[in-house]
């Protein structure tokens, strides 16, 4: 329990620190923010008006407190370029990104976990070496390239077996679930293959270390075969570690799929953020970055707490480590 409280305090502190960093990074723009946002050819009055409208002529501390105050009330501001509220922008983007990364993670798990286990269980050294090579190559492919290759293979119009859409998301979104899902298959596969290779490596190394441990010998001496012991005892013992990895992988996929969203013309979170950065849409970028950072820190928090729950050794080690520290 003390661990959770400590971790929560750290979460809040980190969130605060990040909000300052994000805020500061966006204020050290070279040149005047308002005139850049107004555009190169805009009359000076427009910039002045913007400055007034955004309160950019007030002291930085006041601006920061204003932003924070609004955030605490759930108001993330309004995008200057589109006039939409950041909340609705992010929500519509998330309705594409989250299904995409969940699908991608499922594909990755379906690839990575069985292959990782098989790599540990394989009897022949040659088969194990083949798995090793597979994992290394899978981890070296740029996301952009795996997407391109899949488009070349399956993309409508360009592919050898052109059966799947490779551009855009249906305008009516999830009201036509079938078409929406179809649009996500190739992008999810592109990212799933790469993430799957990395999950395979984690599974293989976590399970491989355990397979030579006394825990496995013990389970086998009780009457399990090696395969049983590795899959039942080994996987269970590796679970805390794997849950951490999967959780952090899931979080990092939000930004990890940026390139894929861009390639497949999906208006997701990452793609939208890049667009907003390109447009220098200060308010939107500021709040989006903060939201994303909060999400990552939040996932980190959940993962750490889950890790504790899943490993009984850590629950009591908690007090010990506090004394030692």
């Amino acid at each position, binding site marked *: 329990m003390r661990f959770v409280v400590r971790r929560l305090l750290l979460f809040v502190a980190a969130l605060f620190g990040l909000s300052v960093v994000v805020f500061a990074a966006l204020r050290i723009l070279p040149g005047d923010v308002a005139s850049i946002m107004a555009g190169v050819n805009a009359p000076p009055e427009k910039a002045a008006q913007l400055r007034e409208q955004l309160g950019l002529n007030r002291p930085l501390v006041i601006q920061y407190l204003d932003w924070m105050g609004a955030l605490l009330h759930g108001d993330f501001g309004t995008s200057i370029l589109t006039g939409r509220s950041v909340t609705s922008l992010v929500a519509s983007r998330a309705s594409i990104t989250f299904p995409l990364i969940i699908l991608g993670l499922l594909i990755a798990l379906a690839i990575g976990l069985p292959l990782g286990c098989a790599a540990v269980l394989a*009897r022949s050294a040659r088969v194990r070496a083949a798995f090793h090579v597979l994992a290394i190559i899978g981890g070296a492919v740029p996301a952009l390239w795996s997407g391109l290759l899949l488009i070349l293979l399956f993309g409508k119009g360009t592919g050898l077996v052109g059966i799947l859409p490779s551009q855009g998301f249906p305008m009516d979104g999830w009201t036509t679930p079938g078409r929406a899902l179809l649009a996500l298959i190739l992008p999810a596969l592109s990212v799933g293959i790469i993430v799957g290779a990395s999950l395979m490596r984690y599974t293989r190394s976590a399970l491989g270390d355990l397979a*030579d*441990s*006394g*825990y496995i*010998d*013990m*389970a*086998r*001496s*009780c*009457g*399990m*075969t*090696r*395969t*049983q012991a590795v899959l039942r*005892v080994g996987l*269970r*013992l590796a679970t805390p570690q794997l849950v951490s990895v999967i959780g952090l992988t899931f979080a990092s996929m939000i930004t990890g799929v940026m390139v894929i969203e861009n390639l497949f013309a999906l208006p997701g979170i990452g793609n939208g953020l890049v667009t907003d950065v390109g447009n220098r849409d200060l308010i939107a970028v500021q709040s989006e970055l903060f939201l994303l950072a909060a999400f990552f820190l939040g996932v980190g928090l959940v993962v750490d707490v889950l890790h504790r729950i*899943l*490993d*009984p*050794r850590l629950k*009591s*080690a908690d007090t010990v480590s506090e004394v030692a520290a």
Partner: protein
Amino acid sequence: MSIQVRDLTITIGGKPIVSDADLDIADGERVGLIGSSGSGKSMISKAMLGLLPRNATASGSIVMGSTDVIGLHERALADLRGRYVGTVFQNPAASLNPVMTVGQQIALPLKLHYDLTKAERAERVAVMLAKVGLDGEVTGKYPHELSGGQQQRVGIATALITSPRFIIADEPTTALDSVTQRQIVDLLTSLVDGAGASMLFITHDFSVLARATTRCYVLDAGRIVESGPTAELLASPATAQARELVSAARLLTLRAGGKEESHD
């Protein structure tokens, strides 16, 4: 159960770890296997259990009862392990499943080999706990919540829960302090004798061996160099290797409260 080991040779990567070892354990007999670390004694026990690392190969024969376990399929070996052969490991902290409660751990061999209800298993576990001198309330605890000696009692309970006919104790006391060592050895021998099982007791420490076994083999660099009744061997070791081990044991007993620490 009687055990005959003939011409047992174990190699890892072409290098011999154990060469032409012959060993006999009669029904109900407690036999020791002693050697310095690296002599290959643990490999012999692993070969008996079919737990050799995958890059190791074993030849010769290990007949347990009427079955030769060398070359036996993993499934068939698994059927033997935990049912007819029980194992006590060196370091309980590194072998007891850390996410299983003591009760689940001890019940595991029962669960794997016998068709019992949960209540029947719990009952046998409770009886076993009493036999190894542990309180009934440890059932719900995790191994890390117990002391080293208590953990090893759990290890012994797990090895004996199915009343196996043969016990392999692989350095069961090495990770313990000297007082606990004695208690654990006495517990193990009384339980094995009570069940009428035979036992192979592996150690590098003659002072423990004298308490635990009646007869023993001395292993050096993978070869059995000497064998005989433990008391005789201890009194007048014939080979240099045995003499060395005996004098090391005397030194250990002399050193007051001399503790052995595990390297894990």
